[in-house]
């Protein structure tokens, strides 16, 4: 195939599909075994300095925050983040110094709430480096290529733009139509972390609502940590097998963490805690504020239960449940008025 254009972005997470097959053969078990552990153990065993990491969910929705806090607490360093609409998670990981490079589809922003002061500061001062650009569809299709076990996937996005010039994609002449087409390289994260509604002890997981790209991501990642609102019996999974989004043989660790997405949303369970996010957005305007936040909510607590107590306990969580189900009005303390 004639190569028409090549992006100059760093190729993160790519492996030859045969190398990946060998890795899977040697490292992924097909045994139904209990993989439950606490987040402390999961992070220390499966997240390593220098890993290429991807986080499930989308924006402030269904984010494995308990794992994010634990990664910060264990002071993991030089992580390369695949920022596929990474919002609060990315902001926290970059602000706390865990992430040193990013491939960006969407990062450094909080959607409607505005831009992220802390991670923007990090990238504008060079503490964190953007090594490649991509689009949201692009990232998701990189994971699709990986889960399919093929080296790349052809798409019609990014063509003609600087997004492509700074990506790891290549443009070739399509042998079927004769038109230029964008080839996105497969992306196998070293580790992916995903929060789900329910899961059995082996890792068979169900998600309510949109899947975003977690179906693909779970199968693309070399190692996968799943946190779950609740652990359910294997029979419940087998009663409705069509609801299984993530199958056990892709999963390395299962951690039960009720409210594990806080301050982010868990669809049909609890809404995002906008007051807490506003506090982060306010404090993270300065490096001192970031430290103050981390001391209080991350380093200063031992576990997620203590953290939930600190952010408002049962009263706050009940309120967030009501907001999610449209039974109480949401607050937007960050709104421009």
């Amino acid at each position, binding site marked *: 195939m004639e190569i028409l254009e090549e992006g100059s972005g760093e190729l993160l997470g790519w492996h030859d599909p045969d190398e990946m097959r060998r890795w899977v053969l040697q490292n992924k078990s097909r045994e139904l075994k209990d993989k439950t552990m606490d987040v402390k153990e999961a992070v220390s065993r499966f997240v390593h300095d220098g890993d290429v990491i991807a986080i499930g969910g989308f924006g402030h929705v269904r984010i494995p925050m308990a794992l994010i806090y634990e990664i910060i607490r264990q002071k993991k360093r030089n992580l390369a983040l695949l920022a596929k609409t990474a919002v609060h998670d990315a902001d926290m990981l970059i602000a706390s110094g865990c992430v040193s490079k990013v491939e960006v589809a969407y990062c450094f922003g909080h959607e409607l709430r505005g831009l992220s002061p802390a991670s923007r500061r990090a990238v504008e001062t060079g503490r964190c480096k953007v090594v490649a650009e991509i689009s949201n*569809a692009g990232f998701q299709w990189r994971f699709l290529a990986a889960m399919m076990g093929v080296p790349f996937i052809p798409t019609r996005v990014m063509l003609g733009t600087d997004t492509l010039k700074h990506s790891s994609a290549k443009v070739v002449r399509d042998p079927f139509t004769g038109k230029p087409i964008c080839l996105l390289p497969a992306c196998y994260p070293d580790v992916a972390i995903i929060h789900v509604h329910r899961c059995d002890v082996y890792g068979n997981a169900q998600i309510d609502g949109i899947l975003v790209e977690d179906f693909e991501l779970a199968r693309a990642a070399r190692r996968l940590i799943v946190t779950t609102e609740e652990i359910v019996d294997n029979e419940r999974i087998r009663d409705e097998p069509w609801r299984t989004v993530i199958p056990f043989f892709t999963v390395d660790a299962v951690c039960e963490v009720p409210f594990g997405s806080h301050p982010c949303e868990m669809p049909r369970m609890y809404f995002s805690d906008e007051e807490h996010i506003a506090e982060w957005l306010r404090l993270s305007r300065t490096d001192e504020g970031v430290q103050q936040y981390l001391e209080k909510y991350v380093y200063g607590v031992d576990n997620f239960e203590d953290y939930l107590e600190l952010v408002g306990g049962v009263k706050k969580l009940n309120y967030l449940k009501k907001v999610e189900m449209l039974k109480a009005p949401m607050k937007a303390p960050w709104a421009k008025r």
Partner: protein
Amino acid sequence: MVERKVEYSSIELLASVASRMLEDKKSVFVGTGLPMVAAMLAQKTHAPNLLIVFEAGGIGPLIPVLPISVGDSRTFWKAVAASSMHDSMSISQAGHLDYGFLGAAQIDMYGNINTTVIGPWEKPKVRLPGSGGANDVGSLCHRTIIIMRQEKRKFVEKVTFLTTPGYLTGPGAREKAGLPEGTGPYRVITQLGVYGFDESTKRMKLISVHPGVTVEDVKANTGFELLIPEAVTETQPPSREELEILRKEIDPTGMVLGH
């Protein structure tokens, strides 16, 4: 009885103008912020059968209150499907999406958009969030509508980073790059006016100015040579009914409208 003058903000006008562009029984790919407000307003007024699609997988929702994110649970409230990004993006690539709705930090005369960086990419002066789904929407939807604030430094001769394709360098450039046939920017809506693109040159042209805005105001806030037709119409202001729905039903907290 004398009809009282309807008071509205420029952002409410933007939402109303944008919503009227969306036709009933068509599909629209919606981004965060004003695009959501406009699509909701269209659905609650003239386009009850507008098919709204969100990148994270919400397909055909009846949105109850303004979502904060294009992925939060309001984006698949009473939807026909709660699906995935692979699904939303694939149906766009296959041609099912009529309109795409985007915001922008910078735009040029061919409708190319920057949402990535101000200053050099290697050493950014201001780092913006990046493409997100914008490049995908601008590449794959049949017609793209852009809503943004107009100032000289935002309506520029050349975008500092071309995140999302407009007509690139002019007629035929999209197809030459491999983008789907017949796609591209359709309208640009700002606080000053509404713009389209000239059929033959693919350059931005003024269509209408908002009440109280002159063609001179428009020119003074544009950093490139804008095509000005002989007849420029005045934009229809928002109706009382639209304003009521915007303020009471869609954005009571003022997240986007800021009332």
